[in-house]
């Protein structure tokens, strides 16, 4: 998982429990590692592009990036944010043994 991807996961994870946050990060990392190569390549390319976007902002603005992606008119860009939101949301809710049915 690339540095920016790790930061996106941390940003999207709502739990303050370090153990759960670690589990969610491993779940997302496992999902990305297991992704079809052609799809993973696309995600990596986007991550590299967005890393530059975030780096040139002062201060670096990850939340702004995610908000911008959410409303982008380009479906491919929206799908980047959606992928990470979905993986984190599903992982956080399903890995939290205290609340899952």
């Amino acid at each position, binding site marked *: 998982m690339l540095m920016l991807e790790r930061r996106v996961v941390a940003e999207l994870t709502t739990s303050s429990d370090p153990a759960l946050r670690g589990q969610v990060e491993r779940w997302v990392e496992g999902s990305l590692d297991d*992704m079809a190569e052609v799809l993973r390549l696309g995600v990596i390319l986007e991550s590299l592009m967005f890393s530059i976007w975030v780096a040139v902002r002062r201060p670096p603005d990850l939340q702004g990036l995610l908000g911008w992606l959410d409303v982008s008119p380009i479906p491919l860009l929206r799908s980047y944010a959606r992928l990470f939101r979905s993986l984190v949301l599903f992982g956080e809710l399903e890995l939290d043994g205290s609340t899952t049915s």
Partner: protein
Amino acid sequence: MRHVDAEVLIVGSGAGGATTAMVLAQAGHDVLVVEEGPEIEPGSLTPFGVDEMGLAYRHHGSSAALGSPPVAYAEGRCVGGSTEVNSGLWHRLPANLAEEWRGRFGLDEFSPEVLDGYADRIEAMVAVNPLPGPAPASSEVLERGATQLGWRSVEFPRAFSYDSAGRGTKQTMSRTLLPRAWDAGASLLADTAVTRLQVTGNRVVGAQCRRRRSDGTHEDVEIRADHVVVCGGAVQSPALLQRSGIRRGIGRGLKMHPTIKVAARFTDPVDHQDVPMHRITEFAPHLAIGGSASRRGHVALALADSGADIDEALADWRRVFVYYAAIRSDAGGRVIALPGMRAPLVTYRLTPGDLSRLARGAVHLGEALLAAGATELYPSIEGGSVVRRREDLVRWWDEVDRARASLMTVHLTSSIRMSSTRSLAGSDPFGKVWDVDNLYVNDASLLGDAPGVNPQAAIMTVALRNAEHLASTL
């Protein structure tokens, strides 16, 4: 490198592979089943939970066919294949489709009567039963909604056996046909991916494989076999054949049931342990309405698809359940093996008619759910309207478009097909790959089209037909 010999190599252990292995082993052949995924103790994983997603699904359950819009899809990857992770709903191949495919593809011994004979035997082996008691509330929602609207609905049987207390056990391949194959002498090599078939002239002589050891390291395995039957499903089977240099009629014409979801909120809690057995069949075969896995994580994803503020609904998730409308699609897709990559590129481009059917499906689904007592509907449409009244459903007609519809499927078929006419399919009428004397396919990729219903019964029926034909010729 490790070397293994077998008379018949079967690649894949799902509905097609298990059926083929059982038939050929019982006919006295030396059968080796190679499965890319792990062997998992039946019942040891929580259905649709994260462990199952990570261990029993390919790509953690999230692949996508590229297109506009893309269609997410999931495939099982473990001993028993997708039968280990699906809902077990059972529906025979509709007779009109069997007749259509028989004529269109020139298939002998493919009449509804002949296929029913195979289906009878498969159902006796697998154990297909209706729920012994009343259906759970999440399922009755569909029946109630249909009744209110004067529509037809059906409670489908499932590949489940029930004890005297009504507790059900899903009759997956690892519980049914694979044990029969092992008892007849077949052997299994799990955690082993077939990377390429070795083709010499017009014969397959073996397979190159990569096996994952329990310590995480890998070993190369070469399997020499007299006959090879590929049963990896509609995505993996054509990809393997293409990687092996066999491309004629392979990987084109992929079909699926594109599906749009709606998360419905009710006034009372809904069960979340099972998938509804009822389907609204009023618009079949072109449109089916049913229910999905609805653990808390699934509910959250379905709610979030709309992009609406979901915090309040998510906090109330025990009153929310996920339903779907699935269509038979006019479109076709492709499976394309890419050099140097394990996973193929999968594409699927919906037609305008498909999108129209999906919009109609979402609206009909909404009508049924509101009629059944739902108070709030969240569609899987980015920026889609959260609907509380029937008259507002009309908005979904315009909102289901290429840019915003969030679609998925778990049914992929027809990427090779059978035909007596070479130009129409990658295999002959019994699954033998054209121009390769000892290579066969026997899985979902042979179906003439996506059947509009859960395809497991059709896959196993055709697999039994083809496997017995093969056994008679070996």
